[in-house]
């Protein structure tokens, strides 16, 4: 087993004035590991995700990240230039609403190619070939490469957003309710796709979801949040099969059985 965690989160807290966003959250994320953060709306899971991904500065705490060259850096002490570079190369962020993560007015091919161009790729033919390859990997017809995402369905947009994020071969992907707002059948397809990609690419991922089925299918480990605190964490099947905390038991018992 690899002995350095990819991400080391230590006592991260975020306050909005007097209100708690999230409080003293600590955990390690290892290479290839998928962590689900579950909890109901307002439990602080998105705040936590935004803090870890440096989209939001926490009130206290630190997050250490192991860079590609093996050095360990404190994310909150990096320059903004370094953080932004990390975000568009070694990380991905999949938003619940694809419009937040895509450029809706430019073509699918350019959406996927943007990250390549951002890291200095200046060969149109290569960029287009890579974009086509990624579109087919996320099951979007290559004949749609010049269509803008406005012409895509919700599921397609979400798949395009995933391709756009994965094209630079990131090692860590953050996902905020990636299946929220999609039909059940579209959800299933997307989940299957994400599961396959995560396995094939050996990605580490942190997925925020209120849907325990999503957590079950995608994650190795999960954390349950309530009122800003992590109240229970462990192996995903342990937490779901043998929930210990009252709130977790309530969550698990609230799953609709079909």
């Amino acid at each position, binding site marked *: 087993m690899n002995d350095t965690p990819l991400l080391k989160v230590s006592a991260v807290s975020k306050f909005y004035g007097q209100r708690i966003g999230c409080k003293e959250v600590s955990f390690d994320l290892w290479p290839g590991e998928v962590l689900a953060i579950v909890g109901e709306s307002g439990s602080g899971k998105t705040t936590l995700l935004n803090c870890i991904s440096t989209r939001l500065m926490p009130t206290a705490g630190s997050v250490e990240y192991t860079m590609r060259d093996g050095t360990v850096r404190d994310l909150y002490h990096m320059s903004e230039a370094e953080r932004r570079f990390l975000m*568009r190369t070694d990380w991905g962020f999949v938003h619940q609403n694809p419009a937040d993560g895509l450029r809706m007015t430019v073509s699918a091919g*350019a959406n996927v190619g943007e990250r390549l*161009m951002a890291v200095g790729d200046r060969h149109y033919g290569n960029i287009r070939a890579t974009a086509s390859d990624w579109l087919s990997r996320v099951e979007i017809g290559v004949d749609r490469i010049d269509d803008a995402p406005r012409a895509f369905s919700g599921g397609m947009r979400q798949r395009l957003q995933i391709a756009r994020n994965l094209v630079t071969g990131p090692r860590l992907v953050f996902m905020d309710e990636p299946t929220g707002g999609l039909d059940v059948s579209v959800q299933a397809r997307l989940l299957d796709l994400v599961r396959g990609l995560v396995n094939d690419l050996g990605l580490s991922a942190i997925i925020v979801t209120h849907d325990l089925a999503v957590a079950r299918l995608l994650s190795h480990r999960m954390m349950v949040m309530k009122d800003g605190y992590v109240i229970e964490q462990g192996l995903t099947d342990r937490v779901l099969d043998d929930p210990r905390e009252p709130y977790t038991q309530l969550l698990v018992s609230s799953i609709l059985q079909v």
Partner: protein
Amino acid sequence: MSPEVPSDSGLAAYNFAYLDEQTKRMIRRAILKAIAIPGYQVPFASREMPMPYGWGTGGVQVTASIIGPDDILKVIDQGADDTTNAVSIRAFFQKVANVAVTTHTGDATIIQTRHRIPEQTLSEGQVLVYQVPIPEPLRFLEPRETETRKMHALEEYGLMHVKLYEDIAYNGRISKTYAYPVKVAGRYVMDPSPTPKFDNPKMHMSEALQLFGAGREKRIYAIPPHTEVVSLDFEDHPFEIQRFDKPCAMCGAENVYLDEVILDDKGGRMFVCSDTDHCEDRREQGHVGELLAIQEAAE
């Protein structure tokens, strides 16, 4: 220093070159900063001018701030000295600064321009002032000013190529023909104002000082003399300028930017120099284009 304007000079009751001296100093400071950071958009407190936005208020303020009584001013619009915009601005400075004006590129010390760079190579000591409608090259891809500023600061210019990528994807080639983005001195990506991309190579290593003023958007930027200016492109789709099949119908010039002129209702047309001064010069020197030759033969 404010040159005193004698009360019997015939000048209107304005300060020299219309703007008050404090404003000129403010604008000059912005210009100096712009020259020090080639291609960087310096914000300035753009003033209301006695003409509407879109008529060159940015360029006029830059010209007003740098012009002195001994300067010789040339104003062109789309290459021509005799179009409304050029005539109005020239008249404006004659009225408020009483400066000498010219249409000859070589004689001018300051050339204010909209949409063209003169064909004649500019030389040391000349200043070319561009009127700029939208200074931000990233604007149409990224609407947030906070974000575009950050992108400039961090040199994140991938998005610029997204635009060019789209062009090739839809048209098979980079079809952008004007306001074609350039990288200045290897650092800032800059919008050269809506000049045709034909003129982009003229900006590169020019001996003249190039100043850009955007009045409505309140930005000034500059290319100092002898500065590298590179048009963005792809390795497999390199930057190219427009080519014209025929020489100028009036003066026979080749490798110049031509305008299409409709001659009649039967589809007759001709292509002539967009730079009127350049065309006249050549004709004076005896160069004769196709159409002129026919006319002369008919006479």
